[in-house]
């Protein structure tokens, strides 16, 4: 009996067993993945016809992945030290975006066409309150909800973390109410950026232009496609406040009809119609508010994306596929993109935002690595992670080390929040949930507790999400990421770079 179990366990470890197990799994994925957009011939054809789109999505994936990686660092640091999945981390990220927006709002310049923007130095300054509040929040959470439970069973702390996450989400919802203060008097005008519906997505002022940096390096004749023209018209309309999202969608549909060959039109129009229907569903959270329809800034943002023809299926948009206005934003660029595709190949765009997000992420990671490897506190953190009791005996103030770990994680989440705001231009108070799922997946994929692993996992998940948005189906992206999570746990629970056993008690 015992030997049979042993040999079975041994078989399970052997590579042959894994390959044998992998074949049916791949087949099942190919079979059942089809409703979720997995159609290999179509995908390969798309890439063959237009290799630029692959490169473009790689860039988008890198930028979004950088943000995910920064959040994942917070998860992995905390997990490395006290073995707790800090659910609240991703809601600290959401509140970081709020903080950044509020600290930038005194500097907002409203342009003639209604678009809000801030100078670059204001954005730079806003990084500090975002990171500071993030750190403060995370330390407070640790003090309030986790410290007393230091020696309690793991699940008890996990439930406490879950509760904390919900509390923060509600704070985010009520922070949105500040937008109503804007009508109370001119002294509150900095809150007007939040809009009048507290549950609706908030728009973030634009900081950097959407200019294609490659245009400066390799200048070429700008040849706007008909789709871009139609999108521009839609944007103009929305800016003037004459068009609702449906109208924007209608214009986008028109663009599709105008530019696409018949069979492609039917293929692309089907999802777009459904999306338009979606937009009528009122967001459930806003039951109490009569004005639950997404408002002008959202339409504006959507139109902006349509206008620039930037195929950026941003984190937030895909995160909230259930939210009407968001869907418009997620699908509209894709639709335009498909439309443009039959005319000419995608021109690869690298904007300043891409570079900024990626470079900030790299800098933060390098600083973190240096901090952990070279400073005394970093050494104390490593010691605490290795053996908390032994560290205590050696005179390390474990409580302080843990608090500093949470502070670092919170600061990173705040920075990621700021970066999301700049990069995606819009956010909503529920975005922490999906961001948390994605970044936790990234941390597990890289090997939880491993900093380089979290960075690598974040980038991989970002690229996977971007590819899924483009080549599979934007509605199923979360499902694909979840599949990756399960497969990693099944085949390599220690992650790509993880060393220690997965069953560390």
């Amino acid at each position, binding site marked *: 009996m015992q030997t049979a179990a042993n040999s079975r366990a041994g078989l399970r470890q052997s590579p042959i067993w894994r390959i044998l197990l992998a074949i049916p799994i791949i087949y099942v994925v190919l079979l059942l993945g*089809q409703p979720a957009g997995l*159609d290999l011939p179509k995908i390969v054809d798309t890439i063959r016809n237009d290799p630029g789109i692959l490169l473009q999505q790689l860039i988008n994936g890198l930028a979004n992945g950088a943000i995910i990686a920064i959040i994942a660092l917070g998860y992995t640091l905390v997990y490395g030290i006290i073995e707790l999945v800090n659910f609240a981390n991703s809601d600290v990220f959401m509140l970081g975006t709020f903080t950044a927006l509020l600290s930038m709002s005194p500097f907002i310049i409203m342009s003639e066409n209604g678009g809000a923007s801030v100078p670059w130095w204001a954005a730079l300054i806003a990084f500090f309150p975002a990171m500071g509040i993030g750190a403060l929040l995370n330390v407070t959470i640790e003090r309030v909800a986790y410290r007393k439970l230091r020696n309690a069973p793991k699940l008890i702390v996990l439930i406490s973390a*879950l509760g904390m996450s919900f509390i923060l989400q509600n704070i985010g919802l009520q922070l949105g109410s500040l937008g109503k203060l804007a009508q109370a*008097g001119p002294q509150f005008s900095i809150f007007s950026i939040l809009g009048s519906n507290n549950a609706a997505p908030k728009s973030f002022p634009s900081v950097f232009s959407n200019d294609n940096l490659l245009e400066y390096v390799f200048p070429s004749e700008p040849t706007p496609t008909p789709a871009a023209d139609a999108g521009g018209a839609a944007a103009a309309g929305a800016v003037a406040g004459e068009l609702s999202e449906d109208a924007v969608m209608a214009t986008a549909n028109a663009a599709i009809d105008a530019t696409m060959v018949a069979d492609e039109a039917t293929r692309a129009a089907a999802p777009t119609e459904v999306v338009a229907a979606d937009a009528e569903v009122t967001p459930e959270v806003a039951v109490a508010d009569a004005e639950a329809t997404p408002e002008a800034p959202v339409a504006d943002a959507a139109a902006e994306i349509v206008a620039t023809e930037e195929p950026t299926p941003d984190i937030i948009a895909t995160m909230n596929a259930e939210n009407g206005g968001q869907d418009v934003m997620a699908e509209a660029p894709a639709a335009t993109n498909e439309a443009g595709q039959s005319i000419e190949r995608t021109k690869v765009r690298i904007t300043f935002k891409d570079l900024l997000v990626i470079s900030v992420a790299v800098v933060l990671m390098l600083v973190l690595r240096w901090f952990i490897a070279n400073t005394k506190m970093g050494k104390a953190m490593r010691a605490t992670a290795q053996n908390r009791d032994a560290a205590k005996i050696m005179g390390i103030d474990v409580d302080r080390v843990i608090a500093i770990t949470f502070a670092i994680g919170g600061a990173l989440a705040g920075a990621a929040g700021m970066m999301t705001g700049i990069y995606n231009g819009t956010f909503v108070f529920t975005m922490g949930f999906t961001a948390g799922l994605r970044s936790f*997946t990234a941390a597990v994929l890289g090997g939880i507790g491993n900093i380089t692993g979290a960075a690598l996992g974040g980038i991989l998940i970002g690229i996977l999400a971007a590819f899924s948005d483009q080549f599979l189906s934007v509605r199923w992206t979360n499902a694909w990421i*979840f599949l990756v999570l*399960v497969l990693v*746990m099944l085949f390599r629970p220690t992650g790509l770079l993880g060393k220690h056993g997965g069953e560390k008690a």
Partner: protein
Amino acid sequence: MKKQLFRGTELLAIVLSAFLALVMGRWSIIVIAATGGALVGLAQDRASGGWKRALQIGLIMSAATVLMGWFHNNVLQLLPVQETINASARSLLTYVGAMAIGVFTSVAIAWLRCLENQKAGRIGQLAILAAYAIAFPFFDAVTGSVWMATIIVCLIYAMQAQGLNIVAGFSGMLDLGYVAFFAIGGYTVALMNSEFAGRHMPFMLIIWIAAAAAALFGLLLGAPVIPLRGDYLAIVTLGFGEIVPIAFKNLEAIRINEPISAIIAWLSGKGAETVTCLIGCGDTPYNLTNGTQGISPIGSPGESFVVGNYTPWYFLILAMVVISVFLIHQLRHSRIGRAMVAMREDELAASAMGVPVTRIKLTAFMIGAMFSGFAGAFYGSYVSFISPDAFDFSISVIVLCMVILGGSGSIIGVLMGALVVKIIDLLVLDKLQVIINGIMHVTVFKWNTNPGLNNFLESLLNMTQYKLLLFGLILVIMMITRPQGLVPASVAKYPEGK
């Protein structure tokens, strides 16, 4: 040693009853007093002083409830936004009734709990609860409090909470995607008994199919991840709970080809005719779930189950809950149930004693999913409409809240937790909103003339938007102060050698 004045559960019963009476008022104080009395009674045992202590605490609790109810009926009633109260609800009968039933319930349950003959005591307690449950629809009809619809929803959640209690309470596995099985149950009913699907199967058959489907999905999900550690399981189930509604939302145009033949056809450059199509091969792809629009109407279980007539629904779900509670109670004391608890307490020791840990975990996971499937099946039939929006993450957390608040592992505690949490969620927050709004209207809004500021305050004080905060607070506070819950699971004693 100093004698404790109030112990946690008793204090909470008093505060909770008084608060609920303050917010709800009217006839409801009778129901509140009965519930509070049950809680007080359940908190007693022989060591705490038995029925004598229950009499003292029950008196305090009932008095607080009646006082607050009186305050609501006579003072808060003057606020501008309240509905009017009919005279009988503020008559002496209501107050006396509430007082009597509160004291009676607490004393009776405490006395029964302290009986020498434990079996008789347990039967007596059940009889009291059964009497209340059966009397409720008549009470509701007499007083005209329109609570039936809410209570039915509460019972649906109570059933889910009982199922989650097996997973989280008995076995110590945190399942954060419990709503997925609820959704699977609901959609199974929709696909088996609706115009949309073109099938009409009898309800009594479908609920078993729904439960089996939920259990099957529990097995499929659990098998790969259950051998992993607990926090990984929590995240994977969280993801699963997120994915299932996404799948139901988007499975509206399915066309599945056999993948190998599709790849061969593509590589050889042949057209679509060589591809083997499996599902959705016609001109229009197969529509399984009707997307965001959902499926409606769903057939009802029988002829008397019509819209607006809640009584048959109430007794159906009541019967389902009672049977579930009975089965789960049997399970808890069976060999499997004891193995679950042993595993929760110390996995290593349990496996050393010969408990097949992985198999027991999977069993618990499947049985838990099954009860959620039952609940989902009833829910689908009851609301006669299923759409993916009804199954979001917050449901998983609400159900977890019920288990945590009531006492994980304690069947009766979880039942009480479910009723309290869901009643607060559905009834109390709305009422509280009305009262706070009323107070604001006679105070701040009167003095302050800035409409923007008033608008902001109204939005900030909108109690219905604080649900997430409430559930979050329940989880955090319970974990820090009383992780065993309001009515902790008693440590069962087994005779030696059994």
